[in-house]
C-alpha cells in the first residue's frame, strides 16, 4: 500500500498502460480516447449540422464506459491514493516555471494559476484552457487519433501514419513550449 500511495515511477506506469491496451485488445476493443469526443458530439446532436457525426454512436458506448471509469479512477486516485499530490518535477523545470510566473510549480498537481476556480474569472487563463482544449479536439480528429490511439496503439502496430502523427505532436508541443510560452506568459 505504501508504494501505491507514492507517485508511480515510469517503470510501473508504462507497463500499466501496456496492460490496459492488452486488456482492451483481449475484450475485442482498441485503446483510443479521443474518438469519445466525436461520440459525445453525436449524442449532443452534432449530426444535424455535419454528416461526420451521423454514425452508429451506440457501437461506441463501450468506450464511453471506459471514460466513465477513467473519471472514477481519477476520483479514487486523487482522494484515496494520493496523500500528497505535489508533482516533484526537476529543479530546473521549477525555476523555469517560476520565472514564467507559475509559483505553484513543484507544489501542486496542476498549476493553480490556470486551473483553480478563481483563475476562471481571469480572461487570459480561461482563454488558455479553451484554446488548448479546442486544439486538442480539432487536432486529434484531424490526425485520426491522440496519444493513446497513435503514440501507443498505432506505434505498437508499427504504423507509419502514427509515427508521422507523433512527430507532429512533438513539433507542436516543442513550438508551444519553446516559442509561444515566452510570448504568452
Amino acid at each position, binding site marked *: 500500500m505504501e508504494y501505491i500511495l507514492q507517485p508511480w515511477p*515510469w517503470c510501473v506506469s*508504462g507497463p500499466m498502460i*501496456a496492460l490496459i491496451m492488452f486488456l482492451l485488445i483481449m475484450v475485442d476493443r482498441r485503446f483510443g*480516447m479521443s474518438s469519445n469526443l466525436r461520440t459525445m458530439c453525436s449524442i449532443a446532436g452534432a449530426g444535424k449540422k455535419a454528416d461526420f457525426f451521423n454514425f452508429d454512436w451506440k457501437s461506441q458506448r463501450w468506450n464511453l464506459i471506459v471514460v466513465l471509469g477513467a473519471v472514477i479512477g481519477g476520483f479514487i486516485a486523487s482522494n484515496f491514493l494520493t496523500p500528497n499530490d505535489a508533482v516533484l518535477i526537476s529543479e530546473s523545470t521549477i525555476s523555469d516555471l517560476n520565472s514564467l510566473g507559475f509559483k505553484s510549480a513543484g507544489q501542486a498537481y496542476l498549476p493553480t494559476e490556470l486551473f483553480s476556480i478563481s483563475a476562471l474569472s481571469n480572461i487570459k487563463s480561461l482563454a488558455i484552457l479553451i484554446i488548448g482544449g479546442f486544439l486538442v479536439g480539432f487536432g486529434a480528429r484531424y490526425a485520426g487519433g491522440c496519444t*493513446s490511439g497513435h503514440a501507443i496503439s498505432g506505434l505498437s502496430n508499427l504504423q507509419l501514419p502514427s509515427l508521422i502523427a507523433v512527430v507532429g505532436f512533438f*513539433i507542436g508541443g516543442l513550438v508551444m513550449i519553446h516559442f509561444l510560452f515566452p510570448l504568452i506568459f
Partner: protein
Amino acid sequence: MKTLVYLAIGILFGITMFKSEAASWFRIYEMFQFQAFHMYGIIGSALILGVLMTYVIKRFKVKSFYKNPIHFEAKDKSFYRYIIGGILFGLGWALAGACPGPMYTLVGSGYVSMIIVVLAAMAGTFVYGLIKDKLPH
C-alpha cells in the same frame, strides 16, 4: 457483465493516468523541455511492451478472451492529415497540459476547470467535423 469489464479497465486507466503523473500539466511541460526522463520512460516502456504484445498476438494468432480472432486495423496511408493534425494536437497538448485520457481523469479528480477543457475539445472536434472536407488529408 461486459459493461463492468469496461468500467474496471477505465478505472484502472484513470488511476494509472493520475498516479503516473502523466495527467499533470507540469510533467508535460517538463517533457517538452527535456528536463526529466519520466514521461519518455512511461511512453517508451509502454511502447516496447506494446510492440512485443502486438507481434506475439499476430505471430501466434492469439484469440481474444471471447475466442474471437484479433485483427489490427491499418491506419489510412496519408501524410498531411497526420502531420498537420498532429502539430495542432501537440500545440494544444502543451498548452492545456492534458491529452484526452487525462482530461477525463482530472474531471474525476475534482478539477472543475477541466470540464471547460473537455467542452472546448468537443467544440474542436465539432468544428473539424464541419470543415473536414475543405482540409487537406
